């Protein structure tokens, strides 16, 4: 292209007269002078207004704290769960390595199936209580609890001043997941627990020493292995009751459940449900659940015991994807050599031509393309014990996520990711703004949020977007106006 002619042509388009004149200079110097003169007032008023606003908010807050808030209910519930227990209810956890995703937050409940969400972003597995479901469940349980509390008030001999109301225990009880599948049982359980509390007063059972419980917990943690046979499990954990029962999403499976020891021996808990008080009063030292796969090999497991503080329970989960959670916090990967969720490890294994168990960290930079697929119900949120794993995938240029979500902040760590395809999984476009290297994005998935795709304009290198124009009414034309090809099917 002839630079001189083109430069002239562009100048002609802009205008042949000089754009920069003395007026621009004058205007600048005037502005400068004005700024110099009025600098005091210029900065003073916004600061004053901010200060007044701050004072207003502070005094308003003080008023609400000092006076009785009109929003506070007069008929306040008699019992509130302690803060730590409430947190446990929500299943929230903070992990510096594992960045939290809205899709899934592991809870501290025993697990018998994958961490999954249904298509609406809610976990479909009833055995793993999703947060939102937790909230709903807690509400319903709270109602039941209040009824239970009311009964306690009318029958004071069932409770004692020093005891925590049992109502909240069932909410926090990891084991209640299974039992709460039958709605309306928690009230019965509460009354059972109260009975236990009464017994404990009369019988004064010997409390299991914490050291003994901890030793057993450590023993289990070291002995637990994915793929153990029933006989191996019985040898490691105990030979109690192993029975077949229906497990959500898995059908009928062998389940070894609820072994407790109050003294030195393991025993099966006939009552089924376990409350915090049962741990506190020394009836139970530790309970565990094992779930087996269709070949009767251990698929997942969990155990619960009273923490050293004597007030809360510690829950350790061996999730089916190999992740070990302690109180809902991902700690390590026990099934594979690399700390990724199972589906991710399997995808890397496929790409590297290896068995998943043999995939190591050194394989990460060899991966060129990755197709991560989740075969269970709902969406799988891929976890990683180290976010650095993504940085090490230097050769990865294309990734397909099918019913799988990798948080965008992790995707952004992949140095040369150019193509991203999302199928039947959530695509949070607002979170994609850091995917600078992306050139091709296929978001033909029903779960695109928000519908307005203008957020993608932030991606400097994006050249092609494949989307369903009928589904996304939100201004996809803007992409075309900005030089991005918008297609409804992938190019040949």
């Amino acid at each position, binding site marked *: *292209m*002839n*630079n001189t*002619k*083109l*430069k*002239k*042509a*562009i*100048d*002609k*388009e*802009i*205008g042949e007269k*000089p*754009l*920069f004149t003395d007026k*621009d*200079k004058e*205007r*600048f110097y005037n*502005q*400068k002078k004005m*700024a110099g003169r009025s600098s005091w007032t210029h900065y003073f008023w916004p600061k004053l207004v901010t200060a007044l606003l701050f004072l207003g908010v502070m005094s308003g807050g003080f008023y609400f704290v000092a006076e009785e808030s009109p929003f506070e209910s007069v008929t306040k519930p008699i019992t509130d769960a302690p803060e730590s227990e409430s947190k446990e209810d929500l299943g929230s956890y903070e992990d510096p390595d594992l960045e939290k995703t809205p899709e899934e937050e592991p809870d501290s409940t025993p697990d018998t199936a994958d961490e999954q969400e249904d298509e609406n972003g809610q976990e479909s597995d009833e055995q793993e209580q999703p947060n939102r479901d937790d909230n709903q469940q807690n509400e319903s349980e709270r109602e039941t609890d209040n009824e239970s509390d009311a009964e306690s008030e009318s029958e004071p001999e069932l409770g004692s001043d020093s005891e925590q109301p049992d109502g909240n225990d069932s909410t926090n009880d990891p084991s209640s997941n299974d039992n709460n599948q039958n709605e309306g049982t928690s009230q019965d359980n509460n009354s059972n627990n109260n009975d236990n509390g009464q017994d404990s007063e009369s019988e004064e059972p010997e409390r299991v020493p914490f050291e003994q419980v901890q030793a057993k917990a450590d023993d289990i943690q070291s002995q637990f292995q994915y793929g153990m046979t029933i006989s191996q499990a019985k040898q490691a954990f105990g030979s109690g009751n192993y029975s077949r029962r229906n497990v959500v999403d898995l059908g009928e499976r062998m389940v070894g459940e609820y072994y407790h020891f109050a003294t030195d021996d393991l025993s099966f808990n006939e009552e089924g449900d376990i409350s915090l008080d049962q741990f506190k009063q020394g009836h139970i030292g530790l309970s565990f659940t094992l779930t087996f796969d269709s070949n009767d090999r251990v698929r997942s497991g969990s155990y619960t015991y009273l923490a050293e503080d004597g007030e809360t329970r510690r829950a350790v989960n061996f999730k089916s994807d190999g992740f070990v959670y302690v109180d809902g916090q991902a700690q390590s990967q026990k099934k594979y050599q690399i700390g990724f969720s199972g589906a991710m490890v399997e995808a890397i294994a496929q790409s590297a031509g290896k068995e998943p168990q043999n995939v190591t960290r050194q394989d990460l930079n060899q991966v060129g393309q990755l197709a991560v697929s989740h075969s269970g119900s709902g969406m799988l949120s891929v976890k990683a014990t180290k976010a650095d794993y993504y940085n090490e995938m230097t050769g990865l240029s294309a990734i397909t996520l099918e019913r799988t979500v990798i948080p965008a902040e992790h995707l952004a760590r992949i140095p040369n990711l150019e193509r991203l395809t999302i199928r039947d999984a959530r695509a949070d476009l607002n979170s994609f703004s850091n995917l600078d290297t992306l050139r091709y994005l296929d978001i033909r998935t029903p779960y695109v949020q928000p519908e307005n795709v203008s957020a993608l304009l932030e991606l*400097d*290198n994006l*050249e092609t977007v494949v989307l369903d124009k009928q589904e996304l009414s939100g201004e996809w034309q803007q992409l075309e*106006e*900005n*030089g*991005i090809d918008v297609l409804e099917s992938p190019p040949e």
Partner: protein
Amino acid sequence: MTGNPEPHKELTRDQAIEYIMNHYGEAIKRTIYTYVKNFHTTDDIFQEVLIQIYRKWDQFQGDSQLKTWAMRIAINRCKDYLRSPLHRIKLVKDQWVDKGDEQSAEKAVIEDEHWGEIAQAILNLPVKYREVMILTYHQNYTQHEIAETTGVPVSTVKTRMQRARDLLKEKMDGREISYE
């Protein structure tokens, strides 16, 4: 981008702004226009850029060309403006104004219709492609200078340049444009 060795850090704030206005004022203002395509807005943004340069003079390290540094401030300001909701509101209004301009332009005599068409097509490219074309062919920047000015890697500049050429060809109804 060529020129005599520039006095950089030796200049006082006032000397620097005077120097920039005198030497690069026209180039900066024309570049701003290629982004915002509105004269009033160009005037306003140019003033903001001058003020920013004046305020940030202490931050100028002298490790890049003075023009590149000033241009980078101008381009960033233009992009901020294009991202702002105010721009979108103005765009609707300007579209009406542009129609009038087009009609009057039709009556005007155009000396070189071909180059005019290309220039118009360049000015209608999406910003990220437009800027590499403008900085290359209007400001004679090298790809490294464009990378430094726009804050993207050289490889990205190259990719965008190629893409800009493809888009330009499309806009010219497939007619080949020879590049030197």
